[in-house]
């Protein structure tokens, strides 16, 4: 049988008129941005009246959140009606942007996200606080019955990852982790090559941790705290253990990431590129199980299906940030944020033109989320997929922190015969928070 017979069809993007007229093959052979459910089905064929829009509230909209918000506002069926942030300046800035976009003055401001969640007129929330808050805020949002788009890393440790997935499942809400590369054509295509056996039997998946280290935000010398209306320090600390106000800690992006002992690049970047490796390895329902101690600035792990995961910073082709590489018995593929693909053989492309989208936009990921809100489906980066990708990152960090081999029990996700490792699976929340 010809090798060509092994090639699978690709997404059909042409219209019928073009199809029947003649030259639709190129379009048909293009791996384009995901189309999901048709616009007509979702009622997006024309402008969407406000009453039919998905109402969205934002929780913790800083630098990254402002970008995400732009992706939401691009969508014709979104009405952004409330912002919660512990910083007054940010609350006002986001309100101004939303009001300007919608041409009204309706965006409400809140300092405590529980007020926002208590509103019946909000369908979904965008959570883009620092990682310290992600899992906790998402859990409270689920308890309030809101659908959730949550930035990554979504959790601080293994137990939070499991609880997050369990909570989303139990509460019947739609959850999308902010791992937007799952909805970019080149990453999707690379994962498809691996998943569908076009690389032969998948052997090894590679991800870049971009710096393996542990971070601890600590307890810094106290400073005079601003008025609570300006900066609500207590809400900023949230589930993190108490410490007095110090302005240097007000960098939500880095504050208490991974619970303070096991954060760093493996979690920050791994929640993207380990997530892609997991998708490629067809392991969205299971984390890597065994982890070797770091050696030569690499960590190696293994999924239950025998696929090896390699976390490494060196040796990448110049294909942009967040690179991944998948190697099978018959070929390999590597790609990154440039949108370009490197392949062991051009035959793997088989006539397709993979749409090259650099800069890792989140627009398509947000659209996927909104479509699933309407159809009550599971988004590409649903809670279960996010759970196991994060567990793998956390477990790799435990191997890094303890500097020794560790193994997870595939049923309980507890480390086998390693009390110290197990103590890093979870961390107490500051009162009153819990998930």
């Amino acid at each position, binding site marked *: *049988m*010809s090798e*060509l017979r092994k*090639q*699978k*069809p*690709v997404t*059909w993007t*042409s219209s*019928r008129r073009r*199809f*029947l007229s*003649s*030259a639709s*093959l*190129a379009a*048909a*052979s293009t791996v384009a941005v995901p189309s999901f459910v048709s616009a007509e*089905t979702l009622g997006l064929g024309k402008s969407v009246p406000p009453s039919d829009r998905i109402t969205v509230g934002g929780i913790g909209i800083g630098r990254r959140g402002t970008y995400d918000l732009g992706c939401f506002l691009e969508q014709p069926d979104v009405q952004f009606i409330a912002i919660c942030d512990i910083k007054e300046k940010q609350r006002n800035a986001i309100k101004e942007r939303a009001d300007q976009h919608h041409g009204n003055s309706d965006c409400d401001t809140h300092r405590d996200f529980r007020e926002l969640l208590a509103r019946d007129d909000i369908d979904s929330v965008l959570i883009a606080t620092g990682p310290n808050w992600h899992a906790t805020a998402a859990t409270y949002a689920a*308890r*309030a019955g809101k659908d959730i788009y949550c930035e990554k890393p979504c959790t601080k440790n293994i137990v939070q990852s499991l609880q997050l997935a369990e909570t989303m499942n*139990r*509460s*019947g809400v739609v959850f999308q982790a902010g791992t937007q590369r799952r909805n970019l054509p080149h990453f999707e295509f690379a994962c498809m090559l691996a998943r569908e056996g076009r690389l032969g039997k998948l052997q090894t998946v590679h991800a870049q941790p971009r710096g393996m280290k*542990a*971070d*601890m935000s*600590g*307890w*810094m*010398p106290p400073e005079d705290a601003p008025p609570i209306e300006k900066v609500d320090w207590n809400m900023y600390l949230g589930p993190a*253990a*108490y*410490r007095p106000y110090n302005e*240097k*800690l007000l960098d939500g992006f880095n504050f208490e990431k991974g619970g303070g*002992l096991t954060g760093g690049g493996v979690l920050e970047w791994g929640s993207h590129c380990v997530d892609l490796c997991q998708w490629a390895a067809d392991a969205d329902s299971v984390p890597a199980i065994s982890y070797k101690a770091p050696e030569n600035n690499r960590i190696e792990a293994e999924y239950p299906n025998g696929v090896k995961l390699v976390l490494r910073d060196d040796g990448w082709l110049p294909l*942009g940030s967040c690179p991944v590489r998948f190697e099978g018995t018959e070929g390999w593929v590597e790609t990154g944020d440039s949108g370009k693909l490197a392949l062991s*053989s*051009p*035959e793997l*492309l*088989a*006539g397709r033109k993979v749409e090259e989208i650099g800069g890792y936009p989140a627009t398509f990921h947000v659209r996927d989320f909104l479509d699933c809100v309407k159809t*009550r*489906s*599971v988004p590409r980066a649903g809670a279960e997929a996010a759970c196991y990708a994060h567990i793998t990152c956390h477990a790799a960090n435990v191997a*890094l*922190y*303890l500097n020794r081999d560790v193994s997870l029990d595939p049923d309980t996700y507890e480390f086998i015969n390693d009390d110290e490792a*197990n*103590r890093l699976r979870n*961390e*107490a*929340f*500051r*009162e*009153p*928070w*819990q998930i």
Partner: protein
Amino acid sequence: MFNACRFFLLTSILALLVNTHSGFAAEVESEADLIAILEADDSPKSEKAIACKKLAVHGSSECIGAVAPLLLDPELTSWARITLEAIQDDAAVEALAAASSKLDGLPLVGVLNSLGVRRSSGTVTTVADYLSSDDTQVVEAASLALGKIGGDTARDALLGNLEANDKAKASLAAEGLIRIAEVAMAEGSTGPATDLYDKIRSLDTVPRPLIVEATRGAILARGIDGVELMVETLSADDRRIREVAFMTARQLEGDGVIDRLIASRGQVPQRLQPMFIRALGGRGEAALVSEIMSILGDASSSEALKVAALDVLPEVGGGDQLVGLLSVAVASDSIVSEAALKALSKIQDEALDNQILDVVKKSEGVKQQILVQLIGTRFLDGADFLKETIRDGDGVVRELAMEAMGNVVEIDDIPFLIERATGDNSDPLTSVALKSLGTACARMPDQKACVGQLRSAIDKSDLETQVVLVETLAAMGGAEALGLLGDLAKGGSTPIQDASTRVLGGWMSTDAGPVLAEIGRIDGHPYRIRAVRGYLRLVRQFVMKQQQRHQMIDTAVELADRAAELELVLDATKRYPTHHNLKVAVELSKVDSVSDLAKETANEIAAKLKPSPAVTKLLESME
């Protein structure tokens, strides 16, 4: 037993790994030292906090006595609980339980939360006492803690609050009880779980999100018998409750569930049937195929329902439904037709491939056009049929067949495409063939053999054809095509050199650098300047390692002999400010034609570099 040597090693690693803003001390502490920090009255709270964190990972039961008093300190209680939640010793739980009686407000809430995490059945009574508290946060903590601990005693305590005449307490009790029910369901105790879910969803004192959770649980806990409740729930007035029913349609487990779900479609309101069929599609079960075909064949089915059915078909099968889907594709309105075409393209089944190759031979008109395109989009072994169609077919299908050829031919058919791509320009098929040739060449696994065929064709062709084939090399890409282009650019006729250097100038990888540099060094080459500028494009715009860029900038200086190109070199140095590139700019300041720009550039680069005597010296070397 705590191992002191191991602790020494681990804390050493900790000191190395942890990027401290303040807390972690660099010195190595023993557990005894950490305990001493906790017990000393004059230890700063910051040190006590970090000591708790270290003990949470490396401490033993020995430290519990020192940690427990910190539970009473509002600023340290959360740190103390980090330790006490982590140490798997009954003494830690006892310390938490004992502290509860001395606390109120938030510290008490925290302790109750920790008891929930520890899930010790021995603490149920202690925790349950707080269900009657006047502090809602305390009741919340106690309710959720009991939900996590579980067991009959916890359940009964929560049921007491569920039935009490206090809406807030009932709501929190429901939340705890749902957690107990979830555990029961997971353990197979579906009867008790169902009872709890039904009780909760029947109460009007419970807020909507909990009714949603209880409804979901009530459906799933019933297994196949949950289908009836699921269908009933689809008619609920509340949108969120309806929505969770759709989710359960995906999640219900058990033998025969899919058949029961399919059989229940008639009871689902018409307007919800598209979402219902999408939910069933999410189960990925082949049993849905016949139902989908039935929907498509039913004249009374709505357009939205047909589209939904076709959207989910590839997820469940449909590999044997070519004829039916073709009929839908050619007979329906445009939205349904397009969905059918999309389904035909996406269904992954070798049986469908074989059907397409078989049926296409007997088809005509629009059906044949569709099938011919499917041969291409599905990458089927249909080259011989496509060639026949190109030879004997009518206009539209010939073009479609030619286009499909690019996706299906193997190396032996490259000459066929070359011949057609370099034929009569007035034939519309020629341009299609050229595009197909580019597609085919780009995907050939043996690039060397493919380029060999193109080289052979170029050698035998007239000038016009040669130029056409150069364009094919551009579409192809890769090292082999680059090699041939380099040869043509250096040794071909002037028009071929023109075409080849044009292609090389737009090459999309830095591999073209050496080829362009080689041409740039050929005195009198008619396109030498174009090659140099192409080289500078790579230097300025492409991602590469710093060392490679430095080498290429040095080569560019060597190749550039006009002010226009030297200005581009300076632009490259400015884009990538390094000490090396500063030196290049300083050196170019000695070239009259770009001296001023070079000085300006050097100063801009220097401003972006870390100040150093070497940088100052270089700047001073400029006049």
